[in-house]
């Protein structure tokens, strides 16, 4: 019988670092999208609250390392490493664990690297810890969350993981070379 080996999206590609910044893969136990049905926002928020992680507002993420609730677009929240009990009849819940790759960009000047790839102001004055945005990294649609002063988590479609790593490598080398 064929024995299948589980591989993460960025296996063999990460981690690496250039200058002050490192890029590494983040593996969550599960990724689940939650899209509240019309009129059920409040009920879903109550479920989130009872579970201990508040439902994130537009452009915000809640939770902590390994367990996050991330605003993921219009009427949609991504649960990363969190389970989704009690949402039956309140929201469309979809397992997305194999659909996305998650990487962490960390270190002094991390925002200088993103400035080369993302058409959005991610300066710490306007894009603070706990802020999140759906935007693009080069031509790829992405979710970007600032999880710390110099730390970002970037979520990208799994099929584009290799391209994402490649784009980051170019930008990280270029920023490191200019310092």
């Amino acid at each position, binding site marked *: 019988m064929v024995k299948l080996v589980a591989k993460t999206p960025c296996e063999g590609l990460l981690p690496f670092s250039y200058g002050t910044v490192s890029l590494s893969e983040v593996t969550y136990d599960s990724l689940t999208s939650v899209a509240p049905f019309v009129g059920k926002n409040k009920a879903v928020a109550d479920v989130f609250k009872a579970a201990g992680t508040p439902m994130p507002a537009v*452009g915000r993420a809640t939770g902590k390392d390994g367990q996050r609730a991330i605003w993921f*677009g*219009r009427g*949609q929240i991504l649960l990363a490493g969190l389970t989704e009990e009690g949402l039956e009849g309140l929201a469309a819940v979809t397992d997305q664990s194999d659909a996305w790759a998650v990487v962490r960009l960390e270190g002094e000047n991390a925002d200088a690297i993103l400035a080369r790839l993302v*058409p959005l102001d991610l300066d710490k004055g306007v894009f603070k810890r706990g802020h999140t945005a*759906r*935007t693009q990294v080069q031509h790829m649609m992405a979710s970007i969350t600032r999880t710390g002063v110099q730390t970002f988590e970037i979520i990208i479609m799994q099929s584009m993981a290799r391209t994402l790593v490649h784009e980051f490598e170019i930008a990280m080398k270029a920023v490191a070379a200019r310092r």
Partner: protein
Amino acid sequence: MRITCPICGERDRREFYYQGAAVALDRPAPDAGPQAWDDYVHLRDNPAGRTRDLWFHEMGCGAWIVVERDTVIHEVYSTELAEKAAR
């Protein structure tokens, strides 16, 4: 060109996909007759000036947006969620 998404705020034009005139929000009644349906499906104005378009925030939050803008001077006057404009 910058477009203000009612959900995400002001964003680069790259994040948006252009669909066309916002006529899709003014669907005729099923019994409106062939002329009304022909206009709805096929006929579009090509204004030099103010126009209402549908844009899709494809790379962002996924919202459909009605954008009122000027085709001559490229100014964007207003944006609104299509789900609200349709009501």
